[in-house]
């Protein structure tokens, strides 16, 4: 009896409060099914972790230490001849010179002994230089692998921050131009047209020539020359959405212009921005490499994939290919993974167009 009563008085299942899947949850579910996308994402995340690790000083902290002989061979080709790797202070080589006693005409001769005693008191810790490094060494005997990791930090950082900045500029201007139209739209269109009529590389070189070298300069240059494509796309999206009924409905309930622009329409075009963002990260990483290669990029005291490639130019002539390989391969892997991730993202966010 009591059991029956209990059954009756048991509370009805509480109303389901968990939010139902929105755009992002659904997109994530679709992305999870995409094997290529997931592998690419793992690779990208690995690179990002590497960037943070290097930035925090956990890995590749001693990239600038000269730990190996000049152009140390990679570990997997230890036996190869390395003419540049012979140490200049080799005792055997020095002893070959015939000894000539000049002590009677040398005015400093009496003090040699004293100086030798004094030098003996100073402790010199000569780091033993390795003949081989894991992935070889550069001209100064720095570890190429560590250099590549440190270079990745610079390159990815520049690519990410510049892409974020460019997407922000492109989205805000595109939203204004597309939503408001009229005079504001015309003015922005003119600005855009004039801006894009200047050859892209020339524009970058002009900026680079005016400002001093540095990371901030290069980010600024890339962002301020790269927003145009995003602007055009976002503008088109806003024109499309501004006439949609849900925006009219928002106007009818009294939502202000900025509310309609950023609260109502922006979430509906955010997938476009996201895909553009990741496309531009790839583009800007490549642009940074080109700039550094041309000598307009990062300052001389830091390293990026671009400066590594620039150094590799002269090394290739004497057959030292590993610096080129390290920078080239790591960049190729990241850029390919990032591009494929972008593709998968686009498919996941916009399943209707495949």
């Amino acid at each position, binding site marked *: 009896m009591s059991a029956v009563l209990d059954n009756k008085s048991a509370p009805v299942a509480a*109303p*389901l*409060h*968990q*939010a*139902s*899947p*929105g*755009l992002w949850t659904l997109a994530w579910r679709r992305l999870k099914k995409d094997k290529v996308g997931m592998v690419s994402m793992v690779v990208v995340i690995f690179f990002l972790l590497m960037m943070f690790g290097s930035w925090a000083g956990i890995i590749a902290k001693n990239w600038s230490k000269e730990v190996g002989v000049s152009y140390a061979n990679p570990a997997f080709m230890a036996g190869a001849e390395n003419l540049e790797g012979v140490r200049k202070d080799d005792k055997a080589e020095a002893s070959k010179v015939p000894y000539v006693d000049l002590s009677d005409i040398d005015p400093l001769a009496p003090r040699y002994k004293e100086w030798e005693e004094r030098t003996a008191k100073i402790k010199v810790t000569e780091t033993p230089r390795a003949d081989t490094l894991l992935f070889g060494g550069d001209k100064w005997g720095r570890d190429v692998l560590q250099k590549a990791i440190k270079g990745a930090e610079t390159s990815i950082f520049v690519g990410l921050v510049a892409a974020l900045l460019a997407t922000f500029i492109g989205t805000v201007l595109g939203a204004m131009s597309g939503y408001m139209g009229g005079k504001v739209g015309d003015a922005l269109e003119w600005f855009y047209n004039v801006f894009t009529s200047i050859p892209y590389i020339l524009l970058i070189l002009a900026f680079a020539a005016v400002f001093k070298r540095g990371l901030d300069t290069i980010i600024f240059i890339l962002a301020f020359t790269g927003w145009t494509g995003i602007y055009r796309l976002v503008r088109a999206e806003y024109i499309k959405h501004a006439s*949609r*009924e*849900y925006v*009219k*409905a*928002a*106007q*009818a*309930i*009294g*939502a202000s212009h900025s*509310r309609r622009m950023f609260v*109502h329409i922006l*979430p*509906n075009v955010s997938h476009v921005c996201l895909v553009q963002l990741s496309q531009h990260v790839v583009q800007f990483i490549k642009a940074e490499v080109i700039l550094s290669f041309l000598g307009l990029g990062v300052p001389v005291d830091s390293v990026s994939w671009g400066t590594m490639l620039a150094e590799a130019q002269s090394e290739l002539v004497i057959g030292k290919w590993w610096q080129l390989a390290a920078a080239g391969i790591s960049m190729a892997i990241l850029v390919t993974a990032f591009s494929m991730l972008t593709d998968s993202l686009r498919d996941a966010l916009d*399943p209707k167009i495949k």
Partner: protein
Amino acid sequence: MDKLLEVKNLGVKFKLDGGSIFEAVKGVSFDVPKNSTVALVGESGSGKSVSAMSIIRLLPREQAIISPESEVLFEGRNLLKEPEDAMRRIRGKEISVIFQEPMTSLNPVFTCGDQIAEVLRLHMGMSNAQAWKRAEELMNEVGIPNPQLRMKSYPHEMSGGQQQRVMIAMAIACEPKLLIADEPTTALDVTIQKQILDLIAKLQASHHMSVLFITHDLAVVGEIADHVVVMQNGDIKEKGPVKQIFENPQHPYTKALLSCRPSVESRPKRLPVIDDFMSAEGLKPIHKEERKRGYADGDQIILEVNNLAKHFQLKEGLFKKRDVPAVKGATFKLARGKTLGLVGESGSGKTTVGLTLMRLHDATGGQVLFDGVDLLKLSEKDFMKYKRRIQIVFQNPYASLNPRFTVGQILIEPMTIHNIGKDEQERVQMAMALLKRVGMPEVSFYKYPHEFSGGQRQRIAIARCLTMKPDVLICDESVSALDVSVQAQVLNLLQDLQDEYQMSYIFISHDLAVVKYISDQVMVMSEGAVVEVANSDDIYLNPKQEYTKKLLGSIPKGWQETAAA
């Protein structure tokens, strides 16, 4: 009677995104006799179009699976087993199709003449000159005036009705034995719909062909069909001669479909809905009581519109602008708790009136007096107070709700903007109460619009307006995109809300039967001008203007004994 087409045990399944299978058609069988018209009737999702498209194998091959026991016998040949190139010869020649949207079915970069002539060259092996000459004859036959000139017109230079005529000319060009018409008149105005229906009926008789007519509108069926097949959820509920279906329907679903749709003749207090017929307890009593409509003398006028005008500026060339009048001086009054119906064909300016008087468009001239205040003269800031008192429900429930907002966000936003409710918690409570009021479960609060059907979304849109407790609600074709049964539910809801809150409605629609049902007064518009304003009973019984008479004459009457005789 000879059978032209026999469909036996047709079953169609679709592979869905998540790998699941959706059964769209569950083994249906029906015949199309020679020289007759068969109508496939059903609401959206009933599988009527899928059935028709699988006859000529036009379904997407990757997703659609036709079950192995299905048979489609066309003059004894099983079309499902024919090789693809044989099918290509049958399509267009023996069986041809007219689609719903003429604008998207015609290729915009070729002239209409080219497109008709192409069919003739491909299937009949005619020379260019022969094909062109025959195309001209066909244009003449489907009633396009001045065919010689129109042959060289591009699709966009023609009206929707004329485009549909071109489609029909292409379809009958090769003298097909079977014409499949997939909702051919749904996108057209009622006067044009009448003409096209007459044309199809005339061609069917003169060419001795059979027509498989797919529609959701039973009234249209009554005018054109000999046999009717009623479908619901992939099953056939009832089939039979048109007389039997209309006079003595057997299946409750058929009965429901017949009575859900408001008719011009009667106006019950509540429209019957599907559930009244399909419920387990059997037939519920149907409300036969009639509702009285019309403005009375003592009515308080809440909205007075004088000479409202709206002109659009079209750019011509680089600097020139052309003035296009969309509304040429509309004058009307709206009483509290009453409904003003606005009818007219597409392009008549009825929607523009609605949008202009709530300032979603800038008016070119005129006055909108709301409680004695001219809304058009107010500054943006002063107008804010009035904004919440006039609200609008749009036509397309799929477009009018922001897809990135949950229903809760959609309902709470207007309250936040207008400071209704003292805090978030009270607003949530109010939103929940309103959801219940419009017949939605409270769980909907946490869901996104894409999880709901068209009718449910329209309820959400109505609830959004109700959050502001408006005095005037503009319904811009609000029920036009809905199925008949859902339409009846939403119309009942609107009526209940009017009775409860004493709201006034401006009900914009091209559907004259719906307007007659819901309106106290009706305003007929044509080409931006007001043709006639009168109490709805008066206007439907005694139309004064020629245009109104023509409009009312085109309403499909359904099946009538005289029509069959």
